């Protein structure tokens, strides 16, 4: 069967704490790094571990030669464990999985809005957009300056709720302001559900807008059917892992986080 999905034992090359509880970990992963597209993800599990048991989903942040870099905030058992792995220790990576952001054409203007862990997609999206001759601009929102991070060689406009860095307000408000003078061909967004809902509401009908959703997920491959995303036309669900995680905002209803 033809496949571009791989299960790799990937060893840690290095881990950096780039902001409080926020990490970048680089893994040696020759097959996945060669195949991954912006917005696709990997499932990461700890060999032999029964607790944590299930793999965790991470959007790929960056490809560095034979390696992939993951960006995460260590808030749960799995991410804390991940942040403490020593160089050379191995995890199991399954990927690349899912449907990423659409490919961009030469000359296309794209705005990328990210928030929270959604910043993970920033480097890979921007780098790949530049490679395809598109004109990307990056916008990154957080509550306060301390939570923001910089990525090498990528120009970013920041927005903070408390005004401690960049624009004083949310990243969506920043985009709305920009839209008064300018208009991109596409908007990409990745971040917490309330932010995605607001992106969908503000821009979904004006610009081709694509959002990367985050939902609980057990397998990442369509086996468990555990990650439904409500279709906009009311006919049922997509699966975030196979049909997404990136969706055109016209395809889905964004869950706002309420149970």
């Amino acid at each position, binding site marked *: 069967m033809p*496949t571009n999905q791989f299960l790799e034992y990937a060893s840690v090359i290095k881990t950096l704490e780039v902001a409080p509880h926020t990490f970048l970990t680089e893994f040696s992963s020759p097959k996945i790094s060669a195949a991954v597209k912006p917005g696709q993800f990997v499932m990461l599990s700890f060999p032999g571990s029964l607790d944590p048991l299930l793999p965790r989903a991470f959007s790929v942040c960056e490809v560095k030669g034979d390696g992939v870099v993951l960006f995460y905030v260590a808030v749960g058992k799995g991410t804390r464990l991940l942040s403490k792995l020593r160089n050379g220790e191995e995890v199991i990576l399954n990927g690349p999985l899912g449907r990423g952001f659409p490919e961009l054409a030469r000359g296309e203007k794209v705005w990328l809005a990210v928030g929270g862990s959604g910043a993970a997609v920033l480097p890979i999206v921007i780098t790949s957009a530049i490679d395809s001759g598109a004109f990307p601009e990056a916008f990154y929102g957080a509550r306060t300056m301390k939570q923001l991070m910089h990525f090498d060689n990528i120009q970013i406009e920041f927005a903070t709720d408390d005004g401690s860095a960049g624009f004083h307000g949310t990243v969506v408000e920043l985009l709305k302001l920009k839209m008064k003078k300018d208009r991109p061909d596409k908007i990409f967004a990745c971040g917490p559900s309330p932010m995605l809902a607001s992106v969908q509401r503000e821009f979904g009908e004006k610009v081709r807008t694509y959002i990367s959703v985050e939902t609980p997920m057990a*397998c990442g491959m369509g086996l*468990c059917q555990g990650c439904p995303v409500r279709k906009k036309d009311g006919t049922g*669900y997509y699966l975030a892992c196979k049909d997404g995680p990136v969706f055109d905002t016209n395809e889905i209803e964004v869950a706002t986080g309420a149970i």
Partner: protein
Amino acid sequence: MKTHLKIGIGKLELKNPLMTASGTSGYGDELGNYFDVAALGAVVSKSLTLKPKIGNEPPRVTEVACGMLNSIGLANIGVERFISEKLPKLRKSGATIIANIAAKRAEDYLSLAEMLSDEEDVQGLEINLSCPNVKEGGIEFGSDPKMLGTITRLVRNVFPKTLLVKLTPNVTRISELARAAEGEGADAVTVANTYVGMAIDIYKRAPKIHTVTGGLSGPAIKPLTMAKVYEVTKSVDIPIVASGGIFTWQDVIEYLIAGASAVELGTVLFAKPNVPEELLSGIESYVSSSKLEHISDLIGSLNTGVEKVSAH
């Protein structure tokens, strides 16, 4: 092919005792990305219903210590699309196919069995009885030996190939269910489905899955299911297919010693979709290093030492 790993279940001869558990391997097509599904004893499909089902609202899954809770709501494409779209792909993969069926009405089980009986590629059926019986006030079909017997008989009458009945562990005496299945002609029983479990988000004071309770699976349940398998071995003569928390090849051997003839892999596939390869090589080394002629020598070989204990 390794003849010393072959296992007979009803009219089926499995290449080895490894099967997939229904609902954890889709329709077999995704797993083909990771290993050759024809190497498995059998692939068991997601539960198929007469009409497609969209499934439950999210969240549907959550992790707990050494396990997971799920409440998918039998989301599936329906039996007709399974036959037209998925069966041809599965046939190509060379897998041995067992279709799992679920329904809320007795007559629907009958229709499902009739439709699948006509399909040459479907070599066996596994009956999922976890749905509430709408006519009997919503009691689960599978929790009552009488209802279980009725469905088994209905299906048996129209399905001459290998028939498995998947039992619920959420009862006081699972052996009564096993006896009912055997009495109505089942070729084997699958022991067992998931355990009813629950987890709460203490900050939201809300259940972690939408339906409040869900099915607990994973290594957390292995000792529980081991005891159920052992209980069932003492009450029926038909083969037992064990399903519950297998993560390593040692777990498979343990179930065989307890009395199972084959096993189903479920939650482990989420973490390691190619795990059957690793389990098979572990099982083979164990069988050859234990100087067993055939893997079936292990089945029910538990030495409890009970005979040696004097009765008071």
